[in-house]
Structures are given as structure tokens and as C-alpha cells.
């Protein structure tokens, strides 16, 4: 199957189409509005379900198989924020604060993009490592922490300590639910997962579809803000994921992951956080402009990955895997 065919299949999946429907809803000024409570519920549901499945899978995975992919993920989490920060400061002429804020988003990971990659793999019957959700938890924190450290070391003044930032990230909703799900899945194992499968596993893709409808509406709002921002950041938001995605695929490949696993790790690297990172940045670096970091991550990179990035990273992983 060639790259264009993959792209077509991805674009016509109910998930991507639901996202587009959300965009359209805003553009035609429909009065459609999903309740806040539904959005929060779906977020928690998706994160918890990802965690559960990953945890149940971890319970049957040896550390032997895990350590290299975890190392690869940590390398990504440390490298990407530096690269992003450098590009933004040097070529984009952003100030320290805004450069760090944006770098934090690209250094972290988007759980929904990750999920879309899983779903894509499943619908193409691509085999995958089951422990991938654990890597999401590993990737979520370092990028944000390093970006904050970059901002701090360039600024003077008090502000909260490194430890308190890490604690805030770990007790923040998204990571808490994800790690909580991982632990529960791991402790209760596959028989435990079996009991809750009709709720957390089977309807998962449908719930994601509904969630992406809402995401489309949110992204449309962000995109509008964003277009005022100027071409450099748009270019950044389109190129950065390709660079990070390629890097992720490569590292996954050399860490001995399957084609599918390298593809998903690449997608994770390419994705920009828009749940954990914005909340952390808003509080730790309130001077940073949300129109930049949200516009880039949610308005451009997220839809780009969803529509084009995912089949692209797969094509790369496939080409690389074929060489072996």
C-alpha cells in the first residue's frame, strides 16, 4: 500500500472526519456545542482506558523488552525541547519565555494524537508493542520540565522550585489518570481488563470519534487566533512534527521496536501536548502568550498530525523497517 493510499484511508476514517466536522461546525457558525461535562468525561475516559490497556499489557512484558524503548523515549523527551527552543529563539526571534513555552509543548506528547496512531495501526492490522501507553507517561513530563528549566535559567527571580513543578505535573489530571490507569491495568492484569472490556476497550474508537468532534471545534477557535500570528510559527508548527516524527521513528527503529512501534513512537515525538503542557505553562510562565503555544500545538500541529503526519510517519517506519 503506498503513502497516498494510506493518506486517503486515514482521511476517510470516522475519527478524522469527525474532527473535520467540528471544524466545519465553527466555520458555518453552527450552534452545536458539546457540554463541558462531556468533554471532561471523554478526556478522563480516553486517558484511563489507554492506561488500563497499557498496564494490562505491561503485566505480561519483561523489563528486558522495555528498557531500550524507554531509553529511546527519554532521549526524545530531552532532545526535542532543546531543538525547538533553539530554533524558536534563533530563527524565530522569540523571547526566552515564549520560546520555552512553545518548546515545552513540542517536548511533551498529545494523548489523543497517540490514540489516533494506535487506531490507525489497528485498522491497518499493523502489529504493535502493547506497552506503548507506558511510553506516553514517560514522555509527558521531561519535555515540560526541561523547557521550564530553560526559561528559569535565562530569567532571574523566585518562582516555584523544580520539585514542585514535577509534583504538579504528576498530580495534574491527565498524567494522574493515565498513570493511575496503567497501575490498575498492571495490578489487575489481563483478567481484570477482561471484566471492563465492554466499557473501556470496545467502545473506545467511538468515544474517540465523539471527542474529536469536540476537538475540531476547539481547534477551529485556536486556528483563527493563530492565523494572526505570522508565517514563521506556522512553518514551525508544520516542520517541527516532521523532524521530531522522523527522529522518533529512527530511535524506535534502533531501539529494536517493530515497524508499528517505531511508527507510534514517531507520532508521539511529533505530537505537541495540549492538555498537560498548557495547564503547566499557564501557571508556571503566565507571561507567555497562549495564542502562540496553543495556536501552534492545537491549531496547526494537531490537525496536521491527525490528517497527514500519521500516514507519513508510518510510511517512514515502513521504509526503514523494510531495509532491515
Amino acid at each position, binding site marked *: 500500500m503506498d503513502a497516498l493510499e494510506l493518506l486517503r484511508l486515514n482521511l476517510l476514517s470516522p475519527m478524522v472526519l469527525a474532527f473535520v466536522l467540528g471544524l466545519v461546525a465553527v466555520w458555518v457558525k453552527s450552534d452545536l456545542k458539546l457540554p463541558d461535562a462531556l468533554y471532561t468525561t471523554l478526556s478522563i475516559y480516553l486517558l484511563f482506558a489507554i492506561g488500563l490497556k497499557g498496564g494490562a499489557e505491561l503485566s505480561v512484558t519483561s523489563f528486558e523488552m522495555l528498557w531500550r524503548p524507554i531509553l529511546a523515549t527519554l532521549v526524545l523527551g530531552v532532545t526535542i525541547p532543546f531543538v525547538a527552543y533553539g530554533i524558536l529563539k534563533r530563527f524565530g526571534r522569540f523571547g526566552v519565555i515564549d520560546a520555552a513555552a512553545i518548546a515545552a509543548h513540542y517536548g511533551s506528547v498529545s494523548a489523543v494524537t497517540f490514540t489516533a496512531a494506535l487506531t490507525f495501526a489497528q485498522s491497518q492490522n499493523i502489529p504493535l508493542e502493547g506497552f506503548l501507553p507506558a511510553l506516553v507517561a514517560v514522555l509527558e513530563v521531561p519535555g515540560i520540565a526541561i523547557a521550564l528549566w530553560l526559561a528559569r535559567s535565562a530569567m532571574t527571580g523566585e518562582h516555584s522550585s523544580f520539585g514542585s513543578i514535577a509534583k504538579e505535573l504528576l498530580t495534574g489530571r*491527565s498524567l494522574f489518570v493515565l498513570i493511575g490507569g496503567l497501575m490498575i491495568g498492571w495490578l489487575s492484569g489481563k483478567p481484570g481488563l477482561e471484566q471492563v472490556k465492554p466499557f473501556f476497550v470496545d467502545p473506545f474508537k467511538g468515544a474517540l470519534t465523539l471527542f474529536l468532534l469536540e476537538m475540531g471545534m476547539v481547534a477551529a477557535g485556536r486556528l483563527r487566533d493563530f492565523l494572526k500570528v505570522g508565517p514563521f510559527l506556522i512553518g514551525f508548527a508544520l516542520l517541527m512534527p516532521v523532524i521530531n516524527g522522523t527522529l522518533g521513528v529512527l530511535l524506535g527503529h534502533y531501539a529494536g521496536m517493530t515497524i508499528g512501534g517505531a511508527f507510534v513512537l514517531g507520532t508521539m515525538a511529533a505530537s505537541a501536548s495540549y492538555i498537560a503542557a498548557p495547564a503547566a505553562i499557564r501557571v508556571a510562565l503566565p507571561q507567555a502568550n497562549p495564542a502562540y503555544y496553543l495556536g501552534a500545538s492545537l491549531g496547526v500541529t494537531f490537525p496536521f498530525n491527525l490528517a497527514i503526519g500519521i500516514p507519513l510517519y508510518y510510511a517512514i517506519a515502513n521504509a526503514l523497517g523494510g531495509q532491515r
Partner: protein
Amino acid sequence: MNTTPAKRITIIAERLLEDRLVRDLILSGATGYTITDARGAGSRGVRVSEWEGGNIRLETLVSPVVADKILELLQKKYFEHFAVIATLEDVEVVRGEKYL
């Protein structure tokens, strides 16, 4: 009915700030508060992360002295970088001695 004059401070802020604001209110001497979920728009209009929800509308009934303390704290800690808006008004409270 005998009522006691009091100040009502109404704060509109990003939901993200809920815990911080409550902590600061209590530290400044407020004995209670009431929050409703709200949405809105203003001159900045930039809100972070939908996952955090929209705004909150926080009311607290306090004595004039505490009111002043709260407004000063808001000024110092939030007004520069966050979307926070605060109003002050006079109300009569029933059983006011409990809250002031």
C-alpha cells in the same frame, strides 16, 4: 429582619486559578466563598486548554477590612498575567456576624 452590612467581592477568573484563589481568600481572612462555573469573553479573550474548562465566578462575603486585603492580594499576584476581574459592592447579610 436585622441584617449586617458587608462587602461582596465577585471575582471572574480562569478555572485554572480556582485552588490558588480560594487559598488566598482564606489566607486573607474570608470565612467562606461560593463558586459557579461561568464562561465569557473580554478584552484578551485568550483562555488556556479547554480541558481546564472556562471561567469561574467566585463570590465571597467579607468585612471591609478583609475586602481590602483580598483586592490588594489579587492586584499583586494575578492581575498582571491572568484574566482576573474583580468587583466590590455593598450588601446586607442575614446573620452577618457568622461570616465577617
